[in-house]
């Protein structure tokens, strides 16, 4: 079977005056719009372009493009065509092997509405308590249901195109009609990636923020406002579904949490930087993390609220060192209804 192809509308780029995809990029220097446009045309035309080397795979241009024309997916396509490796080859190999479907279906008692843990064990810890009453057992997890979006970081659109249709099939075969995605990567895959590649999605993806917001409204009698100031750590895959960002404000509103108006939030969010570390080494990654955390401190955040477990892994202990309490969004909701934070930092005692 031929692999699905990226639907990309060149005319939109031709008509575009802003070239926001490059101009707004936080990791490339394209202040000059004309230069940006020229360079972007090279990308589209499969010519050699500095963009392909310089891209840190932060996903942000997907959000910057006002036409929904998938500039990032285009970059990934071109990187792969030209054999450009955003990350070292063995890392790519490791990722490809690690998530390879092997026919091991890790499922709970799946019902028509199910939770996707994607391939993130954190959710074993996080999914607990009243927020998940009535759904906690309806779970899919592991390679067979892995959304595969991660290969966007590794210039391996071919892996996505190869594996994703089967993944969609696997989910459908579980009889799932509504899939509550606990990770933006999954949600973005089933709302953005599948449509960009013309893959049919025979179930309804629901962002877990929407789910949480609904549950919180049902449980609103239990909510005791937290009255805290929190920095929000917006993750790369949130760029695939910017339409869900308002839920952060909605949920914070219900919980009595102030989303501090810091520099690096919303469209201007900074990557957690572990992908940058893998791709570019420590200098850029350390700089990005420092700027991000300093920004949280400067704006008086008491908590740092995480959406993505991978961001949690890379930043939680670092924000804690600066006196900011790291917490996942699910746990934040739990706090407000009198339950305990489940995902915590392991004791960082060096065992010697």
């Amino acid at each position: 079977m031929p692999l699905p192809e990226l639907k990309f509308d060149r005319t939109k780029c031709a008509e575009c005056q802003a070239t926001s995809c490059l101009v707004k990029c936080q990791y490339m220097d394209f202040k000059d719009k004309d230069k940006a446009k020229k360079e972007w045309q090279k990308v589209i035309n499969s010519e050699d372009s500095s963009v392909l080397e310089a891209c840190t795979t932060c996903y942000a241009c997907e959000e910057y493009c006002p036409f929904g024309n998938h500039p990032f997916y285009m970059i990934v396509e071109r990187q792969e065509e030209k054999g450009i490796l955003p990350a070292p080859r063995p890392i790519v190999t490791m990722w490809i092997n690690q998530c390879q479907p092997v026919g091991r279906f890790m499922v709970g008692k799946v019902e028509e509405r199910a939770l996707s843990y994607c391939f993130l064990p954190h959710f074993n810890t996080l999914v607990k308590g009243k927020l998940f009453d009535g759904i906690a057992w309806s779970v899919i997890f592991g390679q067979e249901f892995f959304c595969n979006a991660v290969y966007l970081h590794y210039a391996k659109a071919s892996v996505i195109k190869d594996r994703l249709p089967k993944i969609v099939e696997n989910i459908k075969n579980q009889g799932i009609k509504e899939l509550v995605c606990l990770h933006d990567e999954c949600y973005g895959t089933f709302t953005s990636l599948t449509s960009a590649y013309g893959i049919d999605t025979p179930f309804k993806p629901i962002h877990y923020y929407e789910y949480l917001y609904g549950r919180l409204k049902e449980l609103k009698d239990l909510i005791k406002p937290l009255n805290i100031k929190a920095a929000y750590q917006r993750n790369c895959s949130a760029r695939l579904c910017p339409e869900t960002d308002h839920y952060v404000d909605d949920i914070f509103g219900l919980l009595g949490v102030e989303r501090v108006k810091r520099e690096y939030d919303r469209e201007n969010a900074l990557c957690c930087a572990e992908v940058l570390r893998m791709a570019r080494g420590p200098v850029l990654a350390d700089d990005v993390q420092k700027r991000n955390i300093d920004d949280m401190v400067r704006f008086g955040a008491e908590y740092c609220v995480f959406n993505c477990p991978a961001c949690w892994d890379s930043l939680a202990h670092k924000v804690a060192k600066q006196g900011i309490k790291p917490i996942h969004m699910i746990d934040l909701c739990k706090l407000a209804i009198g339950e305990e934070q489940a995902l915590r930092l392991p004791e960082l005692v060096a065992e010697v």
Partner: protein
Amino acid sequence: MTTTSALYDSLVKIVGKDFVSDQKEERYFYARDGGLMPPHEPDFVVMPKTTEEVQEIVKLANREKVPIVPKGAGLALTGLVIPQLGGIVLDMNRMDRILEVNEKAGYVVVEGGTTHGALKSYLQKHHPNLRHSIPDSPPIATIVANAVIHGQGRLSQQHGFNSDMVSSLEVVLPTGELCRIGSCSVSSYWFSKGPPLPDLSGLFLGWFGTTGIITKLGLKLYPCKKMRDVMLFLTDKAELVPDIMLRLSHTEMVEDVVVSAQPLPLRFRGTFWIMAYITGDSDEELEFKRKMVWDALWEYFESRDVGLLSTSPEMKAPLMSMPSKDLTRFADVSKGGGFQYAGPITPIEKFPAFIRKLEEVATKYNVFYASTARLIDAGHCMMFSFSFSFNRANSDEMARAKKALDECSKFALEEGGVLWKADIYEQRLLMDKMDPNTLVLMKKIKQLLDPNGIMNPGNWEVK
């Protein structure tokens, strides 16, 4: 020769009834280890508590010409404590005291059966600024036995074999005399196993208990920094591994370098996982060392041949634990309770050839493999393990695993490696290749120390 029951009575007289067994159950268990060597039962298992008791037992054995095999935890897996000719197995586990820590001179004196686990725990509690080189065998492994087989540990990259870290010995000779080796033979300090004296420790280390029984051992301790971290690098090119190891060692900032390879779980397939351990007393120190490590490998990073795998604290925990439970878990990958490895000590340039051989042999004999290589002594050599797991309930698989091991050992020897903790057959391979005059010297030493040939017979048996 005295009858068995008279011997039993004599042993009971020495250590007490509770600590001698001639019963089938103990004889069965002490006849074998976790590896693939054929079992052979002892006549007695004896557990002395004091050096004097050890002397008494040895004198008795020497008088009666009964074989005697000193045993730690029996974890070498190559049958080194299987009593090939029966006799007495001396389980040293009751001699487990930690006698002295000299903080300023940086050593500890332990009894012959003290475990690595107990010492680790003791130092953490009482001397948190000091540590010793913990091997990756389970914590029940004893310090003495590990030194006697020239084990390696978490500080071997910097300080050599764990036996290099011995700083004095007390030994019961095969004829029963008690003998002190190193600085403790002339001083109350246990800081040196030899220098500036003739280094007699070589008469006992590496001899697998064929030349005497170590009842006390001084061990060097090293600074224990407040923080520790591991950096995990991956490459898919075996031929780069030796240079990567050397570059890491060159920084003189890495305490331990371990390279692992295995085909399953899938995330391991096709890449070599290189773990570089660093320590520091402050964030700044750790950060500086991280930078040095990055700098050392930057060229390979830029060429995209080597990558750093970001690791969450949860992922790091098992890599950081000492000893590593993950290594022990390898025994159960095929739900079969067994693994064994051939672990030649070899120049690090051999890494690519050894990996190729490992994959070839695993395919040939249809066995599951893994490998762990540890850098020793700033790159002078490495331990490269050809590890095979097997199901203990599957005799055919056990036979295949044994053949695979034998083939790897022979190969390693041909390639210029030296077999580590060689079993009795591998010892013969080594001795067949050995300089004849070395063999004569070994024979003379054994005859001199153990005229009746009672000590762990079958091992280092020069024809």
